[in-house]
């Protein structure tokens, strides 16, 4: 971090005349979490953005290496806390791949249902938080009202609202709550009724549209070269949905469309997430009445030991592709774990997207990247 006097003295920062370096964050109301952006400005025009990371680095990868294959899954809820179910699912899938466990059909359907509910909850929170970044305060309450229903469903079945630790190697930890189906159906009908409210409040608002259209444009080639995944890449027209490309947990058996927009600006990314929620609802509607009977967890040994080798799985979280890479030496704890988190790659494109635009547009660009800082730092 630079103080004001250092900026004046340091000619390497203030190269030519009229340039100004400002710090956005690490504690700033417009950044989510502790993200620190060093922005070089020429007047109001952004010349350079340099993200400084590490403020919430907890060395989760190293922590996981000292925990057993059953224990390390719960830590990954703390990476991308908004899609904690899907993070846990990725780790469980990787361990299952190593042990070659066949997950029961019921557990697979429960996993997909929970994952899609998490995706809706995450996009709801993003919608409210992004509208608040742009100065609209009320949508935050509306989106949190829908999210509260999902949180209650999670609380009933998993016993927690945010860090559930529900996915275990071999299936899910507990059976569904008897009230689960009724509550999910109620949520689906409520959600369908209330989506037009978001359109009235945000999507069709002229001020909102003017602030989003043509802002933070990312072309398809750049999205690929920066490694963007998830709604950021799909907003630029790059097909990157892991659920479609590399189906896991029975995603190939359900019908849904991969949402693509070609404009590549903030508004396109906004529309992608909004329409993805509808696709998630479509998946839930197909599966909610077709949950097969049977075991919710495969029989596993008390102590899990992965065979020697390397294992990699990837899933589609609410933010993009999450990859889990485990190197096993044959013991009870992993030798090395690496997480390929979607937020880190998406953030790396921020400089390219915001360069040359005004500083007021930076909030719209950052908002539609849907950054979760613990996911970037880990």
């Amino acid at each position, binding site marked *: 971090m630079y103080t004001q006097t250092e900026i004046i003295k340091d000619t390497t920062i203030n190269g030519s005349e009229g340039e100004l370096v400002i710090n956005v964050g690490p504690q700033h109301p417009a950044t989510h979490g502790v993200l620190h952006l060093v922005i070089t400005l020429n007047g109001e025009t952004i010349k350079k953005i340099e993200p400084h990371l590490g403020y919430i680095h907890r060395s989760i990868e190293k922590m996981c290496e000292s925990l057993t294959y059953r224990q390390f899954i*719960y830590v990954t809820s703390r990476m991308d806390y908004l899609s904690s179910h899907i993070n846990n699912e990725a780790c469980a899938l990787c361990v299952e791949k190593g042990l070659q466990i066949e997950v029961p059909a019921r557990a697979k359907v429960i996993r997909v249902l929970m994952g899609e509910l998490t995706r809706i909850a995450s996009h709801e929170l993003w919608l409210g938080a992004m509208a608040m970044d742009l100065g609209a305060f009320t949508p935050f309450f509306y989106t949190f009202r829908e999210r*509260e229903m999902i949180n*209650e469903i999670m*609380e009933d079945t*998993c016993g*927690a609202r945010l*860090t559930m630790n529900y996915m275990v190697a071999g299936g899910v930890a507990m059976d569904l709550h008897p009230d689960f189906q009724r509550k999910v159906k109620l949520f689906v009908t409520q959600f369908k009724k209330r989506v037009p409210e978001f359109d*009235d*409040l945000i999507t069709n*608002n002229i001020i909102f549209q003017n602030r989003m259209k043509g802002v933070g444009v990312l072309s398809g080639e750049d999205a690929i070269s920066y490694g963007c995944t998830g709604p950021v890449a799909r907003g630029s027209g790059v097909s990157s949905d892991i659920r479609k490309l590399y189906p896991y947990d029975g995603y190939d058996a359900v019908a849904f469309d991969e949402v693509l927009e070609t404009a590549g600006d903030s508004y396109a990314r906004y529309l992608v997430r909004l329409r993805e929620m509808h696709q998630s609802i479509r998946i839930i509607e197909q599966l909610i009445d077709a949950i097969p009977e049977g075991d919710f967890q495969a029989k596993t040994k008390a102590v899990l030991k992965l065979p020697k080798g390397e294992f990699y799985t990837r899933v589609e979280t609410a933010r993009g592709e999450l990859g889990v890479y485990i190197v096993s030496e044959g013991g009870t704890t992993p030798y090395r774990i690496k997480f390929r988190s979607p937020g880190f790659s998406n953030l790396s494109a921020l400089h390219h997207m915001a360069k040359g635009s005004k500083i007021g547009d930076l909030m719209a660009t950052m908002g539609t990247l849907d950054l979760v800082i613990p996911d970037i730092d880990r």
Partner: protein
Amino acid sequence: MFLKEYISDVYNGITSLLKGMRQTGYYFFHPKEIITEQYPDNRATLKLADRFKGEVVMPHDENNEHTCTGCTACELACPNGTIKIITRFDITPEGKKKKAIDTFIYHLELCTMCNLCIQACPSDAIKMAPNFEHSVYDRSKLTKKLNLPGSKVKEGIE
């Protein structure tokens, strides 16, 4: 041409704003559809989910008996070192030594409510309780002893 665009922009802006305000106005006049819980005031009627993970407890029956054998499966399953079990050897009436728990120490301040200890327990001796008001003035009060004084293992639990 410019004037026409300007006027239509202003018109669209005002109508879209009014549309949004109609939504917020609807909820202003329909307070029953608001889901806010007046938390500290509604303690008496507050209903938590049955499975809510608030803290680990050890249920005792009316004879002050629990089902914990002291196998330390939960201690091994815990990722954070939350549980510490101190065992002792009881002499049974037949003169044999029998392992039993002396103290079941539970560090609530370290617990992340991951539920792994409950899944690991072979005799269902511990469970999660829906208590969430854990704030205390002294950190040491969060270190709890779960087995009640004078309690013993239920007959027939190995």
